């Protein structure tokens, strides 16, 4: 089975071809990603209208390139998957419309994939991790802890009640005058700094529900910085190091709580999986490795190219659904908000 996947929910225009071999093992035949980071850099964040303008000019080229790199024709594709949300609606509609049109012309199934499901099923794409497992999804737009029990069977154990972790990194970077996107810059600065110089809060620490809150931490960074203006280079490094250390503690604490909650609803997890752009942060990864060792589970961190937005994870989620007989019709609508766990209503600020 071979599926083409399209991703246009944020600031990457991406397409990929993923297939399974005779034994059902996944193979990524191609994965083409066009990042718009440069187009948004001057704005200090993703501007929806600029993103939509870029997607519409690029998505068909990315599809053509993905087919070419995979060495297949459109007629060799068994299904067309697109991320139908959550995300910036203008972009989502472009990718979804493209997949619908390809499905209509070829007569092959359409699969409208939840972008978060793409992240949630990634460990099965890279090393066929078995259900159930605990997923920490941490990106610029999402921070969630999810019990993944099966395809389409997700229980959200925790989410952020305000900023996403990546968003907090980006905001801290911005206030300290570091370039966009800020996450990697903050990590670089943190390496040079003293993580104990500033005493920052660990919001939600010890709470029995695995939710996150990042905005207070961000405000605390600003307050500490304001006390010592103007900032010297070493102050910036120390602020970054202290901030990152706080995030590492918060992530470990919240994930520990989620692991406990996981056992009640799904038994022993086969793995702790971290996905999303924040998974690139080595300090956070090390914190999770310690936690995983302590809890007796394996930490799975997909390669960075599959942690950030790409078409392969959408193609894979589409393939997992299609082989269970799940598909969508041409009237399916893009969804700016779309919680993975249907039982959870979107809370203000939860961003999914």
């Amino acid at each position, binding site marked *: 089975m071979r599926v083409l996947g399209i991703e246009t929910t944020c600031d990457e225009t991406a397409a990929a071809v993923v297939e399974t071999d005779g034994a059902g093992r996944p193979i990524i035949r191609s994965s083409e990603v066009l990042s718009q980071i440069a187009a948004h850099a001057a*704005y*200090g964040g993703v501007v929806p209208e600029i993103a939509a303008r870029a997607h519409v000019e690029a998505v068909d080229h990315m599809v053509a390139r993905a087919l070419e790199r995979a060495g297949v024709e459109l007629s060799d594709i068994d299904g067309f998957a697109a991320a139908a949300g959550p995300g910036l609606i*203008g972009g989502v509609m472009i990718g979804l419309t493209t997949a619908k049109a390809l499905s*209509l012309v*070829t007569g092959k199934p359409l699969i409208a994939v939840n972008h978060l499901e793409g992240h949630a099923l990634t460990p099965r794409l890279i090393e066929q991790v078995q259900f159930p497992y605990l997923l920490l999804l941490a990106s610029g737009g999402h921070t969630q802890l999810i019990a993944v029990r099966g395809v389409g069977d997700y229980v959200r154990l925790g989410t952020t009640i305000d900023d996403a972790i990546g968003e907090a990194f980006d905001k801290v970077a911005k206030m300290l005058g570091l370039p966009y996107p800020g996450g990697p810059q903050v990590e670089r600065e943190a390496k040079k700094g003293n993580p104990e110089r500033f005493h920052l809060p660990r919001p939600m620490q010890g709470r029995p529900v695995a939710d996150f809150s990042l905005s207070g931490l961000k405000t605390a960074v600003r307050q500490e910085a304001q006390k010592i203006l103007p*900032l010297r280079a070493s102050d910036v490094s120390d602020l970054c190091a202290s901030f990152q250390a706080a995030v590492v503690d918060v992530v470990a604490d919240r994930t520990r709580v989620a692991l406990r909650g996981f056992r009640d609803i799904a038994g022993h997890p086969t793995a702790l999986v971290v996905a999303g752009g924040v998974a690139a942060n080595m300090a956070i990864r090390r914190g999770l490795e310690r936690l995983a060792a302590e809890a007796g589970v394996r930490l799975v961190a997909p390669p960075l190219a599959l942690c950030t937005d790409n078409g392969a994870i959408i193609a894979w989620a589409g393939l997992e659904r299609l082989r269970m007989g799940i598909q969508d019709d041409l009237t399916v609508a893009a969804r700016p908000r779309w919680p993975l766990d249907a039982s959870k209503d979107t809370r203000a600020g939860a961003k999914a």
Partner: protein
Amino acid sequence: MRVLAIDTALGACSACVAERGAPAAISTETMVMERGHAEALLPLLERVMAHAPGGFGAIDRVVVTVGPGSFTGLRIGISAARAIGLALKVPVVGVTSLSALLSPIVATAGDRVAVAAIDARHGQVFIQAVAPGGRVVVPARLATAREAARLLGSGNIMIAGSGAGLLAAEAWSVGVNATVAPDALFPDPLWVARLGALADPATALPKPYYLRAPDAKPQEGGALPRA
């Protein structure tokens, strides 16, 4: 040459299949709508193609209105058209919504200036105008209704498009004899097909023609002072 024409740029979701030069479409459908193009377009295309003998395999070219119009609407039409072109390996050409509105009234305008005016909100219109004989009076642009009326001069005019009422009122107020073309709020897909069949794929690219910059301002400041 057989073309598939798509229009979702304005207040309708339409498609038709037509042979170049033919007086009528082989298959056509128009749904009047202000929003909902994204959900309506593909099922509509499925119906239109089901009524066209030979189906997608007989299509030689895809044509799409590229705007000006609703940013979301035109991106949906363009995404669909480009994907269909990719799948069929046929050229995709863009036609502006202004020329699609203008062409049918040029014939009926007689000795009047033919004007296409699309409501761009906030008292503005996207406008284009041609004199009898084809001379361009106003090239495609965004203007306030008042400016637009001034640009058109003092001769009689005939106006098509969703901004026709607004512009006509403005024209009358400065003493210009203005007629609003009937049934011309959005492009007729057959005219989109006709213009597209004549267009040169090398220059009539299927890219959005926004005529308006994105609403986004670079963020300045925010950073704390550095030593």
